[in-house]
């Protein structure tokens, strides 16, 4: 953690000055990071370089090779774009489940909301009106067409609002009940999107008809909505058909996601979330407004999925309710759990790895297997068999994930605690290790009773 050591001038001028100073100080800062944690810094640097150059390398080298010589199990542009999309979601879910300790099993709902934001506000879908604002579409073209820099904030707002709304009923619930309620919402939202494709509804008072809807197609249902406008900046399209531009846009969004999440983590907000996760009652007693803090976790976490969804829909140029299933919520959860709960870099790694496996490696494996043994079941269709086994195994052997934050590692398992303490240079005590601090992430059903007090 880099602690700022000097006061910063106030106001916008001070802010810009601070940013400039930080940028100028970066080389020195990098040198310090390198000295402090050599391996990690080098790995991250290499990763960053690979990420930035991969799309070009793929386009120039791997793709032709795959086409002409032998298919390589390397991710193509679509897969890499989806890696960024899932990375954004994993980072968002990490805020809810990793930082604040709220197990959200319905994260896909916000993904869907983001996607349908693009679908409603950047497509010809609402053909009976024509609202074109700063978009690369001719005036008078049917539908609502907003540019990406309006769509993305709109997706954030919609997802965040729903995040707070759907999180509100869970505030007094225990861990597993909270999970089930979020699961419920995560299923209900896509059902709405699926069913609102042929709304016939009449509402009248007396003899006067107030609302009459005949077969209104709001959401397109399973057939979905298409086409959706791709994001366009300075004439460059960021859709699936525009080559590698979309990949870089996705990478940019991911970087922003990382920065936002990091800043939240290292702030008053992050400490409040950590306090609630550790001992909600004590946190409340120390003045943390737990209701507001938890709602913010839900809202902020959801907004990441909203961005991811909006980008995904514009990228693919289409969306349908079939894209948004419970399994997607679990997939993102696996990324968080596997990668390392609570740690932004961990969940990032988890997202990249699992998206690669799901969208690139397994299909590649599938084609190889089909080539050799055509009757053998196709691994691509059994991806969730593998993921399911992974989940069971992870919980058994390494519930904190591979690269967890030290706090979560300590909370979740004995060896996680030992690892964390080793890292910090603390002598590891092997007897009397209790891993679950009282009150950890569990609200008593009667929310007012502090659970520890025995002396009445």
């Amino acid at each position, binding site marked *: 953690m880099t602690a700022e050591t000097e006061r910063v001038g106030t106001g916008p001028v001070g802010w810009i000055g601070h940013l400039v100073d930080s940028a100028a100080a970066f080389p020195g800062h990098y040198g310090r990071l390198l000295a402090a944690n050599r391996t990690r810094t080098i790995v991250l640097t290499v990763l960053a370089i690979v990420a930035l150059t991969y799309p070009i390398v793929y386009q120039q080298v791997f793709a032709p090779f795959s086409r002409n010589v032998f298919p390589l199990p390397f991710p193509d542009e679509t897969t890499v774009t989806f890696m960024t999309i899932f990375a954004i979601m994993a980072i968002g879910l990490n805020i809810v489940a990793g930082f604040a300790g709220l*197990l959200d*099993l319905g994260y896909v709902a916000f993904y869907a909301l983001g996607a349908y934001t693009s679908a409603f506000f950047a497509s010809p879908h609402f053909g009976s009106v024509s609202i074109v604002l700063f978009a690369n579409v001719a005036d008078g073209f049917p539908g609502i067409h907003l540019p990406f820099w309006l769509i993305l904030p709109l997706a954030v707002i919609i997802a965040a609002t729903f995040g707070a709304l759907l999180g509100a*009923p*869970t505030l007094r*619930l225990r*861990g*597993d*009940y909270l*999970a*089930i*309620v979020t699961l*419920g*919402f995560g*299923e*209900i939202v896509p*059902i*709405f999107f*699926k*069913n609102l494709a042929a709304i016939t509804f009449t509402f009248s008072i007396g003899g006067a008809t107030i609302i009459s809807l005949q077969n209104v197609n709001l959401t397109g249902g399973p057939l979905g909505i298409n086409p959706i406008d791709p994001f366009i900046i300075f004439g460059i399209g960021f859709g699936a058909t525009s080559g590698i531009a979309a990949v870089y846009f996705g990478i940019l969004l991911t970087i922003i996601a990382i920065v936002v999440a990091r800043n939240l983590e290292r702030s008053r907000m992050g400490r409040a979330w950590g306090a609630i996760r550790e001992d909600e009652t004590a946190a409340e007693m120390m003045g943390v407004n737990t209701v507001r803090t938890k709602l913010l976790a839900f809202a902020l976490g959801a907004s990441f999925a909203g961005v991811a969804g909006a980008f995904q829909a514009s990228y693919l140029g289409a969306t349908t309710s079939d894209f948004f299933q419970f*399994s997607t919520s*679990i997939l993102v*959860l696996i990324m968080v*759990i596997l990668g390392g709960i609570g740690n932004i870099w961990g969940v990032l790694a988890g997202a990249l790895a699992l998206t690669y496996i799901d969208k690139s490696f397994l299909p590649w494996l599938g084609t190889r297997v089909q080539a050799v043994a055509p009757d053998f*079941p196709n691994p691509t*269709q*059994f991806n*969730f*068999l593998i*993921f*399911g*086994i*992974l*989940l*069971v195994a*992870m*919980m*058994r052997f390494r*519930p904190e994930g591979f690269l967890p934050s030290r706090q979560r590692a300590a*909370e*979740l*398992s004995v060896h996680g605690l030992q690892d964390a303490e080793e890292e910090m240079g603390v002598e590891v005590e092997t007897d009397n290790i209790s*891993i*679950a601090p009282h009150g*950890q*992430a*569990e609200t008593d*059903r009667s929310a007012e009773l502090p659970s520890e007090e025995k002396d009445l």
Partner: protein
Amino acid sequence: MRSSTTVRVIVALLVFQVVGVLAFGPEAFFQTEIIGLSNGLIFALVALGYTLVYGIIELINFAHGDVFMLGSMMAFLLIGPIFAVTGATPILLKVGIILLVLGLTMLATATLNVSIERVAYKPLRNAPKLAPLISAIGMSFVLQNVGLLLAGPGNKSIDNIFGTANVLTAFGVEGITINVQQIFVAVVTVPLLIALTWFVRTTRQGRAMRATAQDPDTAGLMGVDVNRTIAVTFLIAGLLAGAAGVVQILYNNTTVWNLGFRFGLNSFTAAVLGGIGNLQGAVLGAIVIGFVNAFSDRFLSANWTNAIVFGVLIAILVFRPTGLLGQQLADRA
């Protein structure tokens, strides 16, 4: 159940009949009720599995619906491809085979359930609360994929072996149908429910279950073999799920790899509605949810039924988490 609660339940039921007949007309209403009751009884068998397990180790066994699905698949295999039972098979043979299938399937699912507990939940007894839940979710996916592997993505069907005769015509009742399948559902489920209640109330093992549900540590100190008790609980839950699977395939004649999702949702909601950990509650809740399903399917649209059931689930957990009957397995078996 306390007598006051019983009275309330009966009154509610009567009011429901009156309102329903007025709103929907007697034929449609009673027919939907019959369908709802039949499905509800199947839900009850599965719901008991959820409630027993939650009562004893406070785990929402996500994978339970999928164990039920596998039971249904196994029954399908036995009745269809293997024993080739059809409507034309002689009655005695039919009954014999059904009993055999029940026995085999229940045994298989019970074994499966106990094994799952051994592999996925027992090692996590001392882990943080959410670890077993996540493990259960993983297990659910595994089982679904096993079903997918065995049966492929489409529906698997058998012939209707009971025929379509309407039992009520013998009594001169017009306009409402009760067919043999529905009788069959009742004939299988009701004895099982009674047997379970007897078991938990009177046997030593049942007492051990109730003690463990109330306080596992103390129960252990009092000489209860907690591990074995938990295993027995999963065994019983597995037996019930297997029976439910057999009944399901014979009633609906179709099974599919993701059957466990819909049944799991309905049965778990039923268990929560009745009061998680409460056996009578699970049955009561299941019948209510059966009604909700049937009425929603018929008078609204099947597309919305799942959303409604989820809505019920959320509403209970948020507003009345103790459910309708609200008491623990330990207090009132």
